[in-house]
């Protein structure tokens, strides 16, 4: 007599989020698992939807500016920059050189701050908790500078149409210079602690692979695209503000995996430091604001301005019907496009890879859901 044992296996569907600790906010992932392997992952977005685009239609151009901060909250200055540039295009205003430099400085500082948050959360996701605190320590220094300049720590509302809220305070440049003097050594520290770590590398290398063709067809931009070896950076491809005058490189890595994306961001922080140093040297004197009418009424038309946000190509598209309020405003949100590619990256991943890959895509839910 023979006995036959049959093992029946089933796929397991689990719900990751929206309250999961490492979905970076309120992202919900519906994950189908075969053991510990991922069969399918479907991101379910919209938990942080806040009608950012619709709100613009009932507010005047000035009034909407503080909302621009709130949409990708880790890159408030960058958002303001995109919005302000779009409105200025509509109005045909050219800001003063000093203003341009300060805007670039703010955007780059914000890029560093945002990448630091990325480092921190990624470290946390893969289990290296100390990196989290170190990165926030450095970010705090940047936020202090932002507070000195704009009076707020996260949602600055510092840029204005045609200029800035106020000129930089006197001690700002010295403070920034001090920060820049020690920050590169801190990057080296993260490099030693996290990036070079064998365990971290084995967690990141070869994980979340997706090709440059995929990236381009999904509209992925930013470090995710540059991690696929494609040299595309708005600061170079469609220069704005004073970027053409600045000397910096756009780091790219060919490996197409999570590690490549990580290295791109690490290198970008160094480049941002370089840019900031040059800005400090070249910062011209003069006014920071040009005169704009109190009531902003652009001629009917449309304008699209794009900047390189820490997450990719951030675009702001405005249609004006000649009234005080935008007829339509649209954000091209980099996180949203990058998240689309996430299921592709997660093909054949392990459960543990899910969070590492999500960390390496570096989404901000405010940016995804708007």
């Amino acid at each position, binding site marked *: 007599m023979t006995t036959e044992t049959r093992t029946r296996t089933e796929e*397991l569907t*689990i719900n990751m989020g929206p309250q*999961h*600790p*490492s979905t970076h906010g309120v992202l919900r992932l519906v994950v189908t698992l075969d053991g*510990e392997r991922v069969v399918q992952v479907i991101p379910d977005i919209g938990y942080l939807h806040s009608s950012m685009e619709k709100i613009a239609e009932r507010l005047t151009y000035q009034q909407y500016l503080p909302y621009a901060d709130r949409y990708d909250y880790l890159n408030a200055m960058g958002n303001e920059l995109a919005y302000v540039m779009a409105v200025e295009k509509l109005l045909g205003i050219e800001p003063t050189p000093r203003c341009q430099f300060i805007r670039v400085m703010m955007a780059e500082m914000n890029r560093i701050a945002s990448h630091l948050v990325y480092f921190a959360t990624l*470290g*946390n*996701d*893969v*289990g*290296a*908790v*100390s990196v*989290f*605190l*170190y990165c926030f*320590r450095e970010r705090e220094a940047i936020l202090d500078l932002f507070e000195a300049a704009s009076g707020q720590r996260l949602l600055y509302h510092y840029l204005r149409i045609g200029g800035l809220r106020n000129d930089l305070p006197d001690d700002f440049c010295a403070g920034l210079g001090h920060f820049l003097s020690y920050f590169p050594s801190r990057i080296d520290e993260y490099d030693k*602690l*996290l990036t070079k*770590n064998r*365990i*971290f590398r*084995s*967690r990141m290398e070869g994980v979340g692979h997706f090709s440059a063709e995929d990236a381009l067809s999904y509209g992925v931009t930013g470090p995710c695209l540059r991690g696929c070896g494609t040299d595309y950076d708005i600061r170079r491809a469609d220069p704005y503000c004073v970027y053409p005058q600045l000397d910096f490189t756009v780091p790219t890595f060919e490996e197409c995996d999570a590690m490549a994306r990580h290295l791109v961001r690490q290198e970008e922080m160094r480049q941002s430091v370089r840019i900031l140093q040059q800005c400090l040297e070249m910062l011209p004197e003069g006014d920071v604001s040009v005169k704009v009418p109190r009531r902003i009424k652009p001629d009917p038309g449309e304008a699209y301005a794009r900047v390189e946000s820490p997450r990719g190509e951030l675009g702001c598209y405005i249609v004006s019907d000649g009234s005080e309020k935008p007829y339509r405003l649209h954000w091209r949100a980099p996180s949203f496009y990058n998240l689309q590619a996430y299921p592709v990256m997660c093909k054949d991943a*392990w*459960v*543990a*890879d*899910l*969070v590492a890959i999500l960390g390496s895509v570096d989404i901000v839910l405010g940016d995804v859901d708007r």
Partner: protein
Amino acid sequence: MSLLSQISNWLRLTAEGLCQRWGIPLLFVDLLAWMVAVAVIIGLVLLIVLIFVYLERKVSGYIQTRLGPMRVGPIGIFQTAMDALKLLIKEDIVPRGADKILHTLGPILFFVAAMLGYVVIPWDDKAIIAKYVDLNIGILYVTAVGSVGIIGIIMGGWGSNNKWSLLGAIRSAAQMISYEVPMLLAIICVVMQAESMSLGRIVTGQQGAYLSGWYCWRPWLWLPLILFFIAATAEVNRVPFDIPEAESELVAGYHTEYSGMKFALFFLAEYANVFVVGLIGATLFFGGWLSPLGHPDPLHIPGFFWLMAKAFAIVIFLMWIRWTLPRLRVDQLMALAWKLLLPAGFLAIFIVAVVLLYI
């Protein structure tokens, strides 16, 4: 004669005297002695764990350029005690659809298993506990009761009716079973060297001038030393091997659905287990209760103190590791155990055997 055994002897004599006067069989004295011993162990372990948790918070805080707990008591020393108290009075939630019996039994079993390990630790030369139970298979016993804990984890994970818990429990079981093997291989090396499985004998085998007799100074035992610590860290689910409760992946692993006292049991037992690793590590490789100042200790510091000091040093080193490293992925973890540590373990045994035979 150490103070501890003096007290215990005095207590015992008094108790026996009382028994004779009241006509109670002497068996009761033995029973009583056992109960006292158990109470002392549990109390001691809980105290150690509280200190340990506080220390971990402080060390992690300092490593992360924070201050750690500062609010309750001077520099926050009562923080963990208060947290334990808070957990005690918290509501105990059993999720809907959970297997109530398993859900309750899981943490208890895990806790008991963790406590059992402490029974055979040779705290001191003639300390009461060691006198009662210096098992001749002490080290085997420790590893054996260590594995009983897995059942508690699986019970908890399965009984919680939560997929994350289940995943965590399965991971935990797989991990603990895998790492048991290299750990035992490493221990076998020490057993070969000491020619005994009794922890007491292993310690006395390390006697020598000052700390020269400790096994950690013998080059052929270095590989087992490293193996032991890697495997033991994995056994007790600490970073970089904390995948069963990787909070960024599995929420909280097998204790996701636990609250109140049951959670506290898991939590305490986990830390108790880590401390066992420190104690066993100190016993196997760092001379246990032997004083580094010479034997017998010229300053009459009890061996208990030295054992504790060594164990805490090891545990602090484990904390340091924990707050530095990221965690491995589950397949890498398994690959590490079976493909690297296991062959290395056999190699270690081979080396030790050759050395012991021919040198």
